[in-house]
């Protein structure tokens, strides 16, 4: 399969760029997919936030969402314009700032607590962000820069246990541990999977990584068993009916919302599900499946597959190791998160609060995601210039 994909890529690429300049290159296509998903989110989020609240409320929600998109577009343009090499030069500083914010958010007077979890740093007047949002991207940038440096040392440098696994592994573990302390199990596991995936891709020994993961299973086991709410989520996942008032309730409402969509959906006005908590965040996909039916849901899945496809091409064509790794990391973060979100809402994995990138409510998450996609586009554009 990978062989076929590669051939396809080799054929389409020159055609698009040289022969028909009006057609957008990979950067343009990524931008179009992104714009489509963001547009969808404006409708879905607004409807979910104002379930049964009348027309005025809906208009306000749309305006709020459009404002967030406008701010996010600035971040997108920044990512698009700044040569991506800039991020490599500042990767260590970005990582340090991320560490600082991840630690700060745990300080009671700084981080604000929602439902027992400290995930937000707020500046007042509704402005704030979740440090784990930029941190996961900063970590990816640092890993990409690290792999780039290893490559500079020599071809086999990543096979070295210390450089290829131990050092980056410890940095990943530190970031993930801070996220777990908030606690934000969803983002932490996403970051861990993508982080270790990246160093594996860069050339770390599969055997060594596997052994390390095996060695850390007792820790992961402890983390789950020692946290009643995580354990409950797993038991709820196995038997949602047992805990119908808690997590099982959410899951059943989510499944019912998806099931009610049918092929064509009930229409944008019917997205509001008063009984589904956190509909505009952790269960936005259920709302979309209800509003736009199987067709709408399939289009969303297709959009992320397409984004993944374009990301793969950008990774392959990137001019240097850093560009490749960064493109792979950003694509992986966004598409894996989308997959986990869909898996949670469809009851395919245990419930964990994870948003759908670009689509779920929340301005700060949209801001950093759009910025990272801008960076992805810049890598794609650099490829074009250098050829």
């Amino acid at each position, binding site marked *: 399969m990978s062989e076929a994909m590669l051939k396809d890529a080799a054929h389409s690429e020159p055609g698009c760029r040289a022969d028909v300049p009006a057609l957008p290159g990979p950067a343009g296509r990524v931008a179009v997919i992104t714009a489509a998903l963001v547009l969808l989110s404006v409708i879905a989020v607004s409807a979910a936030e104002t379930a049964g609240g009348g027309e005025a409320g809906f208009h306000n929600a749309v305006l709020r969402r459009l404002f967030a998109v406008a701010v996010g577009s600035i971040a997108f343009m920044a990512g698009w314009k700044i040569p991506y090499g800039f991020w490599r030069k500042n990767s260590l500083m970005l990582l340090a700032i991320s560490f600082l914010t991840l630690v700060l958010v745990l300080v009671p007077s700084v981080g604000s607590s929602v439902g027992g979890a400290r995930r937000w740093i707020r500046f007042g007047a509704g402005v704030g962000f979740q440090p784990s949002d930029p941190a996961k991207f900063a970590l990816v940038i640092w890993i990409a820069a690290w792999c780039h440096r290893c490559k500079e040392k020599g071809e086999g440098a990543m096979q070295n246990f210390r450089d290829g696994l131990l050092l980056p592994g410890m940095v990943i573990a530190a970031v993930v541990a801070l996220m777990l302390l908030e606690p934000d199990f969803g983002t932490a596991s996403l970051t861990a999977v993508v982080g270790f995936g990246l160093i594996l891709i860069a050339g770390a020994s599969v055997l060594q990584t596997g052994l390390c993961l095996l060695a850390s299973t007792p820790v992961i086991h402890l983390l789950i068993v020692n946290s009643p709410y995580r354990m409950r989520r797993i038991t709820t996942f196995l038997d949602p009916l047992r805990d119908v008032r808690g997590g099982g309730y959410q899951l059943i409402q989510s499944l019912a919302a998806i099931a009610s969509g049918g092929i064509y959906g009930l229409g944008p006005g019917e997205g509001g599900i008063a009984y589904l908590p956190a509909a505009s965040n952790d269960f936005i996909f259920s709302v979309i499946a209800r509003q736009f039916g199987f067709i709408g849901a399939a289009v969303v899945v297709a959009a992320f597959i397409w984004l993944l496809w374009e990301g793969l091409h950008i990774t392959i064509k990137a001019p240097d190791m850093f560009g490749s790794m960064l493109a792979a990391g950003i694509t992986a973060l966004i598409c894996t998160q989308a*997959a986990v979100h869909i898996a949670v809402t469809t009851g395919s994995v245990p419930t964990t609060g994870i948003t759908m990138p670009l689509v779920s409510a929340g301005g700060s998450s949209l801001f950093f995601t759009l910025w990272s996609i801008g960076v992805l586009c810049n890598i794609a554009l650099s490829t074009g210039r*250098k050829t």
Partner: protein
Amino acid sequence: MAKGNAHSGDVPAATAGTLRRVKIAAAILMLILVALAGRIAQIQFDNPGQYTRLAAVRRMRSESATRRGDIYDREGRLLATSVPHWSVFADPTEVYDPFETARILARVLNADLNTINARLRRRDTRFVWIKRQVSPSRAEWVRALELKGVYLRREDKRFHPFGSLFAHVVGFTDIDGRGLEGVEARFEKELGGFERLSAEGGNRAEKGYDIYLTLDAYIQSLTRDALLRQVERHRPEAAWALVLDARSGEVLSMVNWPQYDPGAPAGSPERNRRNSILADTYEYGSVLKPITVAIALESGIVEPDTEFDCHRGAWRFGRRTIRDVSEHGNLTVRDIVARSSNIGVAQIGLKLGVEDFWRGLNRFGFGDPSGIELQGESTGIMRAASRWNDHSLISIAFGQEISINAMALARAFAALGNDGVLVQPRVLQKITDPLSGDEIRSEGRPENLQRAVSKDVADEVMRMLARVVEEGTGTRAAVEGYRVGGKTGTGTLMCKDNRGYSKDRYISTFVGLAPIDDPGVVILVSLKVPTGGDYYGGIVAGPAFSEIAQGTLGYLKVPPDIQKDFLARTWINDYGSHIH
């Protein structure tokens, strides 16, 4: 093959190996996304009704469409049930003329016009309550009016046929029908009946499980009447009484005073809602003496006839003077119990020593929860043996420095009546499914209960308890036609600031068993801080014991001890005791 990228010499590019791994990872992620699309199709096309139905069932439940289970006493008398009521609510966005609608509703529902008007004018919500839990007849009226935007929904109201009689045991529910206290809270899951709902798809489930308690409304009401008579006479802060089946541990009655109305629990102060029998622990005082003696007899350090010098009513031990109410010379262990001599029992305690005493109390179940199926039990304070000294031995021997709840006390006495074996107190008789009539759970007699003392020791102490009533401090607890036994106790309460014992705050108790030869019931009566002048347990609580025992034994058809006098005489001859 992947070297198609152009790059300058000094910039490292991704190698073929890296690109291969990238493609593998991307392929895996793509497969997952495709599989998830398949999963969505499965949810939407493969019997989607099952999810919407489940969700609807959940919603139905939250709107109280199921009826809560009933609670009965052991004879099937109804203690708590749900009566159909309707709640009126409105969607303000649908209401045509808020003021006119409010005016009509206010008149029909006998409610405040301004409140309803304000609610109907709200524009930030599509749901406002107009009035909750109105009677079916008024609800019918509202329905007939067909006001636009005004709706009704079934919301049952809990009804207690016996009023406040069972309030402390049965408890109450909140307005949404969730159990907050007592049996209602402890068996919320069973009464709410939701477990069954989800398992069977939600069509058949109209009612939760019914619960049968071991309590008996007749015994409960005569317990309350007897207690209230003493409350009137001695005007205590609080009082409670308990009847326990001495053999099975079943609670036959459990009464607390002051009472409250379970239909309007918010109408009385919170302390009225306490079930002091379980929730409050006290140093009950002399009622512990028979237990001390039983432990001493069991360990073999004393015989029933062993004599102790009671020092004419005042005995100095170290810097402390132990006093008796009356002056005694030499008393046998039997007499020590009958006369309730502090000095005598203090010496028994000292003789027992820390280890034997502590272990003996443990065997009687002190320091452990009783395990009864009710919430909020407090186990009290029994200090670790390592922190005991000689003074502890003395104090604990007559029931100080050991804080227990009334249930633990009654349980220890039940062990004496049950041939020395502990019983398991319980209030739950069975849980049944009203739809099928099946018994979901029934409580058999638990096995392997621990032995507190040997049968011989238990019988010996029972004879001592009989003497307490016949000639000792508890003569007012005597019951006509039956031989009974028990022990008086006058515990000293802590001062309100918890510094030392108060001089005028007592807890007066009588615990006893009836009939003495084949004990059927344990009865405990306590009055906390009687203010009528008297405070001795025998005087304040004894008469209530007598009345409760008389009524209960008659009701349970226990044959009277017709040979009472004859038995009493032989007993006196056997033991060579004397009567004043």
